[in-house]
């Protein structure tokens, strides 16, 4: 994996983790509710698994599609999907109502999986291939293999993990919530912009 690619996937992971809607705030809330720091690593672990699976799943689908369809179609489909998610988060942002606050580890894995999927996290990772010097994805690779979508997913999830673990720990330990919540910029808009950029990246790539 090239250094640019490594940086891209890691950076995208950090960006995903920064969004309070992607998990760190949930970890802080659970630790506060149970009045115990042990909920931070526990929740972060569960969120990481869910996020990783979502990204792996989406990348996997497109890699497999790449075996069946021509690159033109794969690019087209992923581009359309990215634009679709972008418009959704800009104009019709809805959040799930299938999870409450009284949750266990499996609930968190499920929640994280659904949030990452619904936010098009995996699609962004997939689209990243056209930003990076050496694309990973099927339209430029011969054969394709498991590694193709495993590596980006792993590197990306590592970035995500670092971000949520660090932020959740600091916010909980230093009681920063009061300060932090006022700085909560609108990630739905940032997210849409990223999705549009990714879509354009694919279109031009």
């Amino acid at each position: 994996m090239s250094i640019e690619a490594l940086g891209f996937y890691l950076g995208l992971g950090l960006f995903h983790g920064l969004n309070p809607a992607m998990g760190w705030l949930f970890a802080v809330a659970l630790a506060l509710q149970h009045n115990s720091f042990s909920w931070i690593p526990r929740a972060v672990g569960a969120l990481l698994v869910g996020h990783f699976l979502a990204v792996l799943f989406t990348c996997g689908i497109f890699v497999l599609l790449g075996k069946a369809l021509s690159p033109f179609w794969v690019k087209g489909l992923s581009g359309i999907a990215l634009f679709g998610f972008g418009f959704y988060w800009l104009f019709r942002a809805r959040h799930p109502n299938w999870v409450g606050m009284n949750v266990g580890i499996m609930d968190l894995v499920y929640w994280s999986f659904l949030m990452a999927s619904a936010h098009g996290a995996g699609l962004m990772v997939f689209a990243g291939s056209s930003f990076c010097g050496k694309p990973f994805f099927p339209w430029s690779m011969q054969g394709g293999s498991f590694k193709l979508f495993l590596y980006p997913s792993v590197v990306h999830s590592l970035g995500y993990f670092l971000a949520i673990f660090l932020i959740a720990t600091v916010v909980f330990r230093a009681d920063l919530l009061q300060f932090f919540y006022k700085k909560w910029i609108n990630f739905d808009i940032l997210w849409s912009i990223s999705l549009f950029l990714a879509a354009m990246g694919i279109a031009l790539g």
Partner: protein
Amino acid sequence: MRWTIDPTFYPSARVAMESPPEKLAYVVALNPAAQSNGSLENPRGDILAVVDLDPDSKTYGQIVSQLEMPYPGDELHHFGWNACSSSLCPQSPHPHLERRYLVVPGLRSSRIYVIDTKPNPLFPEITKIIEPEVLKKRTGYSRPHTVHCGPEGIYVSALGNDKGEGPGGIFILDHFSFDPLGMWEIDRGPQYYAYDFWWHINQDILISSEWGTPPMVEQGVVGSLLMEGKYGHRLHLWDMRKRKHLQVLDLGEDNQMALELRPAHDPRKSYGFAGVVISRKDLSASVWLWFRDNSGWQIKKVIEIPAISVEQEKLPTLLKPFGKVPPLITDIDLSLDDKYLYVSCWGTGELRKYEVADPYNPELVGCLKIGGIGFQYSHPKNPQKALNGGPQMVEVSRDGKRIYLTNSLYWAWDEQFYPSGIEGWMVKIQSTPKSFEFEKDFFIEFAGLRPHQVRLQGGDSSTDSFCFP
């Protein structure tokens, strides 16, 4: 859509208490002429009044504008914000919604108004009307009552079903479009009567209370039903995630009409207070504590207020046989620090202040008198004037230092308990750990109208739910 967070969303009650004092109140008021005289040629609608609460303003303590509803006879009663601090809850965060629209149901008409306060907070405007037919068709409910901004939609309770009978329940409005999305319950178990509801948001527990079906309340209290113990006397616990009934907490048939529910604001605590209007045994009123201990959810009476004997000629027909005025606890409100509980005794004209830091043993620390059946206590602004109606809807400011109080209950019940008619008023009370007194110059008269619930700009002690302790 906002780039930054709505400054009136607070992660915790602690943070909310430090927010700046409220500058405006929105107060709904009933137009009794539209109820008592159906043949009026030009019946007027109920109103939403905007009251100036900024002591530095020239119009402080006055009604600065009135928005009249386009239809007469809605009976505006309780209402709430489209969004509040629950938008910060981490499982479905919506921090860039705005606390902007008031969702105002007509309890009698089943019509719901969505009123925009943003373009000009002093002159709010109606932006959407949900007609009764639409509400009934889409949710199966009528007589909408309590409004709470939930983490993923606006929850509204309803006294009756689409036929105007039982069961009542809860429905959801979409918090972007305000379209009624449907019935909330998936499994209502033995629940039949409805009234108020709220939740322990971090424990996924919703709790609901019981009044009666529309025919039991809309023409006034039915004495025979009351004496037979037929009004609601149970609380219901629900699983919020599964929308499923979990448990009944029964107060016993003697305790009639379990109305307002005030769970602790701290999401780590598992208790709350419920006001009970009247006991059929001795006309006393009571406040009950629900709580969770090792053996599960329990309920226990923690406050009892006895009825007071009064000469018969001062009593309305309904009460003459008893020779007593019942306290009639019609509203209670808990300060955001969970330390003080304010209890309205609409019958005896008392507003009581209890210290509830130990919720199992409330301690009476203050009592103010105004109005009341047979008492007609006056207000310090005009000590000569006898007032009618009594302390009813009570709203506590976010910092807990100011209390706002209005005097009308519900049209048909106003007529029974205060047959000479209620002249609407709103008063302000200063409350500190040491003092509890009326602000002498704050006395707002609602000429010909009857004010009910008060909502403070930026949130108050009975609107917001917090996911962080």
